[in-house]
């Protein structure tokens, strides 16, 4: 299995398109960091605009933690795009390249192939997330230093330095599960077709459609919203709240994981039954 995963990883990381996400993240995050380095005062003013006439504010607001949080908020939307570029092709690419018969006639089961591709996908998602953590958090800490984190959502939450890292860790864990769902959905579409463009477009279309659906200001959306998996994507933000409910967060993670498992099972069934003779 390890060898199979290794082979799949080579396939993923040999393609230049697999690095679009990494370069995109590096470019966007660098732009933000450079902008904040030069015009950071404006950002601080924007954040404290509501507070400064009521409170005396002292200390370093513009620090690595704030920038890491701002970037995760701003570029979360990038993650699905980077994931589907790889996931959409992971099976369909075999069809495009005409290698389906080659891999299926090897002495490994089709389930093993699916599982190895799935694990390779997980490692790719991790590579994106670890890269994001590095460029947004680690680099920001080096450039802007450490400090307390101020979060303006559901009021004002300020976190001490020793109360931040675990929140980032859990947030990124949640992001991982969200992206795993995106990956498995795209993986599912990828098992149905022999061209990577279809799964990429279909996955993004579903994500956008679900987001729009949950935002329509009519009564019926509140009934369907809990069943739309996109509704749980932004739950990572709740970790940056003093009063977050562990049960709700675990439920959110479970919901995302359950979807991923269902999509993976469906993909396995489709792939195992796939006709490669015609």
């Amino acid at each position: 299995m390890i060898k199979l995963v290794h082979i799949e990883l080579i396939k993923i990381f040999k393609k230049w398109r697999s690095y679009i996400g990494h370069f995109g993240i590096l470019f966007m995050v660098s732009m933000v960091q450079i902008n904040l380095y030069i015009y950071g005062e404006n950002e601080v003013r924007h954040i404290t605009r509501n507070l400064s006439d009521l409170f005396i504010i002292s200390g370093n607001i513009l620090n690595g933690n704030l920038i890491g949080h701002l970037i995760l908020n701003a570029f979360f939307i990038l993650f699905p795009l980077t994931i589907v570029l790889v996931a959409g092709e992971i099976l369909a690419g075999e069809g495009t390249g005409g290698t389906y018969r080659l891999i299926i006639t090897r002495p490994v089961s089709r389930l093993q192939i699916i599982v190895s591709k799935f694990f390779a996908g997980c490692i790719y998602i991790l590579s994106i997330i670890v890269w994001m953590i590095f460029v947004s958090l680690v680099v920001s800490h080096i450039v802007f230093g450490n400090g307390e984190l101020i979060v303006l959502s559901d009021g004002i939450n300020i976190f001490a330095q020793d109360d931040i890292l675990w929140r980032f860790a859990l947030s990124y864990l949640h992001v991982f599960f969200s992206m795993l769902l995106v990956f498995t959905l795209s993986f599912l579409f990828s098992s149905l077709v022999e061209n990577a463009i279809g799964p990429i477009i279909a996955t993004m279309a579903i994500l956008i459609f679900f987001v729009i659906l949950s935002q329509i200001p009519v009564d019926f959306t509140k009934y369907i919203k809990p069943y739309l998996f996109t509704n749980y994507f932004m739950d990572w933000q709740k970790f940056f709240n003093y009063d977050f409910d562990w049960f709700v967060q675990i439920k959110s993670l479970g919901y995302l994981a359950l979807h991923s498992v269902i999509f993976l099972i469906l993909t396995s069934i489709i792939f195992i039954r796939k006709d490669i003779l015609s």
Partner: protein
Amino acid sequence: MKKIFVTILILFTITNFAQDKNAEKIISAIKSKIDKVDNYSANVEISVKFDFLKMPKSKAEIFFKKPDKFKLHSEKLTILPKGVIDFNPQKIIDKDFTSELIGDTLIDNKNLSVIKIIPNADSIKFNAAKLLVDKNEFLIKQIILSLDGNAKIITYFNYNDQKEFALPSQIKINLDFSQVEESENKRRRNIPENFKGDITINYNNYKVNKGIDDSVFVDEKEAEK
């Protein structure tokens, strides 16, 4: 919200004009203590518990110099309510109050004088205020403030080693604005009009009248420019 802190600021400035002779005597004695303070610095530990603002306890150093110089210095991110931490005893003397001694009350086995403060101007945004004063030591122990919309602010003062300057060792402020109606035009992002909360400030390591250089009050960022 802003008016809360303005009101709190006013609280610290109402110890002045009195028409009631007894009240005037007590208030003058308090004021003479405050007047002794030319400058001071202190370490503060503040805990803020509001519905809308949650933060860990923060520590800072504060500096005050007559007439109205105030500086808060903290390495860590610290957010302190204006009008509470930086109240300036020298700003006293808004002459639009009338004070009246209305009796005594027993709190924590201490006999405190109750002084009623009546605002004379419409611009003053509170309906009624009471000062509870220890008339033996001439120290304000409690301020009870009633505002519009059933809002209430109660401030408790404790004193330790700076009684001669009327500088507190602890201030506890209890704010109850839960009954206040939200006004759309005044709505601030993340800061509601109606809320409940407590602010506790502990003061220690007071250095009173030891002299503070003016450069302390220069903003570091301004100085860099």
